[in-house]
Every structure is written in C-alpha cells, then in structure tokens.
C-alpha cells in the first residue's frame, strides 16, 4: 500500500512538472514561419486520439478560454482518475493503517508492558517542568490538532463508517461543520506550531545523549532501565520534529488547499492534497503514540502538561540530566548565589 501511494505521489509530481513544462512551452514556442502554402485546416485538425496518445502521464489536454478562470483551460485531465484511485485506494488504506494500526500497537504495548510506573515511587517533591505559556502552546496545538485530525479522518472514512450509522443528512451536517472547524482551527494550529518551534527548539537539538537513550530503547521496554535524558529525550524530540515538520507540511498544503487560487494548477492541487492526506495520517499515528505515553501509558507523565509540575522522582528517572539541572537551579535560586556554574540547559 505504501509503495502504491509513493508511486502515486511520484506520478503526481511528474504531473506537476509536466504541466509546468507544458505551460512554459506554450508561452515560448513561437514558430515564426508564414503559413505553408496549401494549408488545409480541416485536414490538419487535431484529433483527440493524437492528443491523448501524446499526453504525458498526468498531463492534460488544454487550450484557450476567454473567461479569466485559467483552470478552465484544461479540457481533459485523465489525471483525475489517478487521484481518484489514490483517494479510494492508498489514502483509504493509509488512514486505516495509521489509525487502527497504531491503536493496535498501543494496545499491544499496554498489554505487554503495562503502565510504566515511577520505579522509586512518588517523592512528593514537585518541580516545574512546563510553565503556563508552554502548556498553553501545547494544548492550543493539541486541541486544534485533535479536531483537525478527527474532521480529516472523517473525510476519508466517515462515508463508510458513519453514514450507515447516522444517515446521510446528519452526517453531511456534521461533516459540513467539520469542514468549517477544519478551516478555522487550522489557524490556531499553525500559530501553535510557530510558538512550539520558538519555545522548544533549543531543547530539541539532537545530541549524544539521544544516541544512548535510543540504544537503551528509551527504557520503555524494560522495567527499571532509565537512560539519561535532558529536558526532552530522543523520543520526545522525535515527536517534536514530527509535529514541526509534519505540521509545516500540513500547513503549507492546507493553505494551498484552502486558497486554490493562490498558486498552481489542477495537477498541483491534486499533489498537494495527496501530501496533506498522507502526512496527516502519519502524524495521526505518531500522535496516537504520544497521547498514549503522555496519559495512560506512564505514571506521572500527564502532570507535565497538566499542572506543569512533575514529581522529582519521575523527572529523575526519565529526564535525569534535566532533573539534576532543575534541582540545582532551584537550589541556586533558593540560597547560594554566584557559585553556580553556567547551566548547560538554562531553565525557563
């Protein structure tokens, strides 16, 4: 399935290139000869068959229209059928795999590993992990993403799952609302992305500790194993970068889908839509994992984004370097001054 989708995307990419090349050619090709003697326009007429045969994959038979709507110039665009095949095949299955597959993995993981508890128990000592602004940014992004994801998934799967349950009218109403929600919540989501990037990028630069963390499997697989980590461990960094990169891709493609008049043509919009769909599915999968580990999957993890304060023991087990740093800093702030060495990870 993934292979198929990649081919599709690649094909769509060629479509776009071909379309651009065609446009370019149309503008440049200026045969400068007087009409040959004995022109018989009827005999020289183009036929559909010739044009279809000459058509590059994903290209279109296009001409001139007098109306300003330049997307009307495309007469026959067989690429529509490819997009349809992608949408009905690849997109459908990718979404199912991403959603159902990841849920299955999470459930399996829970069954095997159970909830990851704090090995050393609660210390009762709380340290501030995320301040109010960080938490606001997180929830802004998370909340809008949740709606975007659900309304998005609805477009792919709702027809098959929900119409039989609720009937077409109710479904259409909800989906219509979903479309508005999707269009409007895209903006807070994008704002959240920008803030996240600004606030957390410095803590998410990969470094050597990440290698060790990954080698130890993040300590997720085995009880009692706690590889060192700074404010964010490699797993979280992965989430961060997935959100940033995936979110950026969704934002760019989303804006183009929202304002198709901004740029590109038919083939471009198709490509953009395919990217949007596939990236969204992947990000949904990632987020399912993230939500699991941040909630039921791990004792004490939710507090980080809940109250913002985490238990010191939790911090020590999962973010030892950061916990130490934070504790030192708290101490420094509490009494002694000047003696503190420059913090490698300045706290917020």
């Amino acid at each position, binding site marked *: 399935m993934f292979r198929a989708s990649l081919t599709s995307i690649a094909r769509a990419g060629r479509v776009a290139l071909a379309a651009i090349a065609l446009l370019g050619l149309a503008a440049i090709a200026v045969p400068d000869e007087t009409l040959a003697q004995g022109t018989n*326009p009827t005999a020289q007429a183009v036929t559909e068959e010739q044009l279809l045969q000459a058509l590059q994959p994903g290209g279109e038979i*296009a001409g001139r229209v007098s109306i300003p709507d330049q997307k009307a110039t495309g007469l026959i665009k067989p690429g529509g059928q490819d997009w349809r095949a992608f949408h009905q095949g690849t997109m459908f299955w990718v979404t199912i795999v991403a959603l159902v597959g990841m849920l299955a993995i999470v459930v399996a993981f829970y069954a095997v590993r159970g909830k990851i508890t704090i090995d050393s128990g609660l210390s009762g000592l709380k340290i501030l992990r995320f301040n109010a602004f960080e938490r606001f940014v997180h929830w802004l992004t998370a909340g809008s993403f949740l709606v975007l994801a659900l309304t998005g998934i609805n477009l792919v799967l709702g027809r098959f799952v929900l119409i039989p349950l609720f009937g077409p009218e109710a479904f259409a109403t909800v989906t219509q609302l979903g479309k508005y929600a999707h269009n409007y919540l895209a903006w807070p989501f994008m704002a959240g992305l920008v803030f996240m990037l600004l606030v957390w990028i410095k803590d998410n630069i990969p470094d050597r500790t990440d290698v060790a963390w990954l080698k130890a499997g993040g300590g997720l697989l085995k009880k009692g194993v706690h590889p060192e980590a700074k404010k964010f461990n490699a797993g979280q960094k992965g989430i961060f970068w997935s959100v940033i990169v995936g979110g950026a891709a969704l934002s760019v493609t989303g804006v183009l889908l929202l304002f198709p008049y901004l740029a590109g043509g038919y083939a471009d919009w198709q490509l953009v839509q395919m990217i949007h769909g596939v990236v969204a599915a992947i990000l949904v999968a990632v987020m399912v994992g993230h939500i699991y580990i941040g909630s039921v999957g791990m004792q004490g993890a939710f507090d980080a984004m809940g109250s913002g304060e985490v238990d010191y023991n939790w911090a020590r087990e999962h973010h030892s370097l950061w916990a130490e740093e934070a504790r030192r800093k708290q101490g420094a702030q509490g009494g002694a001054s000047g003696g503190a060495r420059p913090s490698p990870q300045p706290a917020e």
Partner: protein
Amino acid sequence: MARMKFLCDADRCIECNACVTACKNEHEVPWGINRRRVVTINDGTPGERSISMACMHCTDAPCAAVCPVDCFYTTADAVVLHSKDLCIGCGYCFYACPFGAPQYPRVGNFGSRGKMDKCTYCAGGPEADVTMAEYEKYGANRLAEGKLPICAEMCSTKALLAGDGEIIAEIYRERVVTRGYGSGAWGWQTAYKETVAI
C-alpha cells in the same frame, strides 16, 4: 432506459458560446460559475479545434467515488446528479473530475468553496421535479419536461449533441462517414471508457 451522454463534434464547433449562455439563461447561473465552457485547442493555427465541455456524466463517475459525503447519485438515465443539501464544498470532486466540471461559488471568510455546482444535464436535482425548490438549487429540469439539455438544443451548428449515447454516436458516426473526417468524440474514452468507432 436511455444512457444519456454529450458528444461535441469539434469539426462543427465554432466556439460561439451559445451553449454557455443558453445554460446561464436557462438556469440563471451566477457570474463566475461556468457549468459549461468552450476550450479552443491549437488556437490560431491550422489544427485549431474548439470543444464545448461540461460534466460528461461519466460511467463510474470519479466525483461520486471520492465524495466524502456521498452526495452524488446517478439517475435511471445515467445522469450524474448531486445533492446540494449534502455537499460540503470540499473540492474532492474537482480533484477527481477529468473535465473540470465542478464549480464552486466563493463564499465564506476565506473565499473558500461553497456548495458545488455543475451541469445537471438539465435534469434538476433531488427535489421534486419541476418545482421552485428544485429550480433555485439546480436550475430547470428539462428532462422531466421531455426536453433535452438546452446547450445542445441551442447549439448554433448542431455540434453539441445530447441524448441517448447510442443515438448520438450514430449521428456522429454518420457525419464522419459522410464528410470523411472527424476529430473524435472528445472525452468519451475518459468518461465512458469507449469511443465512437467509425
């Protein structure tokens, strides 16, 4: 039951746009929505041909296949129609349509797509036939009155044919045989997976 189709004989089409304005007139189609349009290929050079294009009412219509709210339906005459009550203006049918048929009024704060509008083959929509309710959303329902689409009926050179696929194919075939040339039944391969064999 007939299998309704369109066939534009490009060797007759002169880009007079009667089909376009007849459609506007019949259905009071607003500015900016072009249910039908005429595209000229190889403009200005020997080889030039104009083709009038609208929804071709495809067999196994891609628009219907991709619609997330499943708002399309095919009538017994094989006319592909949709329900504006269900349509959410997502644009998927436009991505899938090989003929650029779906049109969207620009509405909302982002000028985003309103409910899709397209050629109805002058067959209205899901509302009761020949009622104001139907007219306001989809325009006239000529088929219910025993008439064919106005664009074809008013085509200046009788280039645009509408009616049962077999009959119009026969008309076209006969023309090609008589005159000895034909640039093809434009869009038929794409829409109906068949062409008019001469």
